[in-house]
């Protein structure tokens, strides 16, 4: 009875959502609002927003990957908010999992294959994560997946060696330095041009590594920050073992 009621309710909610969203033009040129007003340059254009990004994005930001241009440049302030949400999540997990008298748990050691292999692959995985977030403006990827890859490298060491522990002080220091870099880059833009996260460095040639102004700088900061936060989450969920 309860299950049938739940299914009927789910179907009703689905129908309501379908009716509500079927009218919204998705990615098309909207006929009722044809003018996109740019508040910075005080211009109006009669393109839709995706068309505007695809047409002017490369000249505005210098990034080849348009998703990166939108995430870091056009919507950079939102990204600062997302990183802050992740920081709050990490703090919450740390405070929930904190125990005063830590009981050391006796666990079985892993075998030689896993230990040697994880020691060998740790450097490769860190290198690959750095590649992902440094090349964020050229290839798919960016700060968030790069940070997740770096955290996975530390997770591998936690799994292979029962006695491994990342120092919490160093993690918080690297995380704070990365967050400060993000905010300081934004504030320099505020001082130079009058709005937050202004792209003040020269753009360079597109498709080269040193291009797109401050975007690679911000993505490196986001990568280090996300990596240390996720490593702190893994560390506090792992507990103390022996």
């Amino acid at each position, binding site marked *: 009875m309860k299950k049938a009621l739940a299914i009927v309710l789910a179907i009703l909610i689905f129908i309501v959502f379908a009716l509500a969203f079927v009218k919204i033009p998705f990615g098309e040129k909207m006929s009722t609002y044809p003018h996109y007003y740019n508040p910075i340059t005080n211009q109006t254009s009669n393109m839709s927003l995706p068309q505007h990004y695809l047409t002017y994005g490369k000249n505005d930001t210098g990034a080849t990957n348009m998703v990166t241009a939108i995430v870091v440049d056009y919507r950079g302030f939102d990204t600062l908010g997302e990183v802050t949400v992740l920081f709050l999540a990490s703090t919450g997990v740390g405070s929930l999992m904190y125990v005063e008298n830590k009981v050391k748990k006796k*666990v079985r*050691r892993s075998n030689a294959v896993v230990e040697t292999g994880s020691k060998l*692959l740790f450097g490769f*995985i860190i290198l*690959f994560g750095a590649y*992902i977030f440094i090349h964020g403006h050229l290839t*798919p990827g960016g700060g968030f997946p790069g940070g997740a*890859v770096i955290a996975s490298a530390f*997770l591998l060491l936690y*799994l292979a060696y029962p006695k491994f522990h990342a120092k919490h002080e160093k993690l918080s220091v690297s995380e704070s330095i990365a967050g400060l870099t993000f905010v300081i880059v934004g504030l320099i833009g505020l001082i130079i041009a009058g709005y937050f996260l202004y792209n003040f460095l020269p753009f360079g040639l597109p498709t080269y590594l040193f291009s797109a102004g401050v975007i690679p700088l911000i993505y490196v900061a986001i990568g280090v920050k996300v990596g240390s936060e996720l490593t702190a989450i893994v560390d506090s969920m792992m507990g103390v073992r022996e």
Partner: protein
Amino acid sequence: MSCIVDLCIVFITLISVAASLTIVRLVKGPTAPDRAVAMDILTNITIVLLVIIGFYFKRFIYLDVALVYGILAFVGVIALARYLEGGL
């Protein structure tokens, strides 16, 4: 040129049939290690599928997704294995 595209899509279909055959083991498998083996096989099949779909689209930069799976997929398998042998 059209011949090349046809061959690629045939390979993609065959490999996705292989992926759906591993799901049979995931549904049937009596114990958890059977399902873990199915996942281990499916990660390898997924890497190949990603590479061939990227080749079908003729996008070189799409290979990065397959690289992420190639280097990270075994970490999840090792987490499972360490839990099963009581090492966590």
